[in-house]
């Protein structure tokens, strides 16, 4: 199991825009480097990526939830 961690504080969004599809869903296969969400701080959006390839098990932060540096956003079962 590998954690995807937010390096910065802000608001976590699972979608690139209000009318868009989520970057990734629980249970989905993701590749290393793939974006799974964005964190907004100071009017800037930073992409949150997975370091590993595998199955995205669970989001631990809800859409539009607040995160702090070091917060685990999601867990991935690495291959």
């Amino acid at each position, binding site marked *: 199991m590998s954690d995807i*961690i937010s*390096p*910065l*504080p*802000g*608001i976590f969004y699972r979608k690139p825009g209000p009318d868009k599809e989520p970057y990734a869903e629980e249970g989905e296969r993701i590749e290393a480097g793939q974006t799974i969400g964005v964190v*907004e*701080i*100071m*009017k*800037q959006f*930073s992409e949150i990526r997975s370091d590993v390839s595998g199955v995205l098990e669970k989001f631990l932060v809800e859409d539009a939830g*607040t995160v*702090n*540096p*070091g917060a685990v956003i999601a867990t991935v079962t690495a291959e």
Partner: protein
Amino acid sequence: MAFNILEPGLATTVQDRGRPGYYNVGIPQGGAMDQLSAEMANSLVGNTGTEAVLECTYIGPKLVSDEDAVVAVTGAPVEVKINDVVQEQWARLQLRAGDQLSFGMLSGGTRYYIAVQGGIDVPSVLGSRSTYTLGAMGGFNGRALQAGDTVPVGAQHTPYDDVPSPARVDEAERPAFDREVTVRVLPGLYDHRLTEDGLSTLLSAEWTLTPVADRMGLRYAGPELSWKPRQQPFGAGSDPSNIVDAGYAVGSIQVPGGKEPIILHRDAVSGGGYAMVATVISADMDLLARSAPGTTTAFRSVSMDEALQARREMNERRARIWEWAR
């Protein structure tokens, strides 16, 4: 010599003591948000208090020095790395030509500072090297750093081993980066517009810093404040939190609609139409700059005498940094 920027970080800007004297024409004082930390970084590398430093917010840069350089990192707690080897924060460091300076994850606070002997050598604009990004002036081309930038650094004048300042800042002298802070404020100029209940709520409630916080201002979540009813004067707008436009003070607290107070910080606009119900004293502006989103904050009312005493104490604390230079 120069720093070559491989990765810029989130919002890395050149800052110094700021650009006072132009707020009346709309140009904010700017400067390092956490002046004390920036000044301590300058002292560590053997600069004066006036050299420009790099202010890093949440995520710092990855940079390479093209020559040997004496550097120091102060401010928010973060892992400092030279060629991926962890170094001491709040201490003088030797960067060799070609060495890479980078950072790990922030574990508290908001901003940290990179000082280099000789200072960041960008042109002075209206007496300051500080970046005012909204006005696209000062600093490095009036903007935050970008990958590929070559940031000029002043000449190194004293070898690492000969720098006369203390090589580290004692833990007891370092500012704290707490998740709970008390910020001292002076009520006014428009506190009379709040009801008695509204003012007492402002000064007694627990406020939480939201992620909406940058060099311009910081927004807090908490209870709603109530305003005295009145016939709004011409030019004041319809909301009771509106006033006829007035000059804003640095540190002043406005409460648009009575919800979510905003404290103006060093890059704030100089005027507008929101009632300023209180003003953070100058000695506590650095404290705000260190607050991370989620910080629990209380506003405590002080008198003008107490505010001036706090300013004297802050100035004495800053003077102590430079005892070695006298």
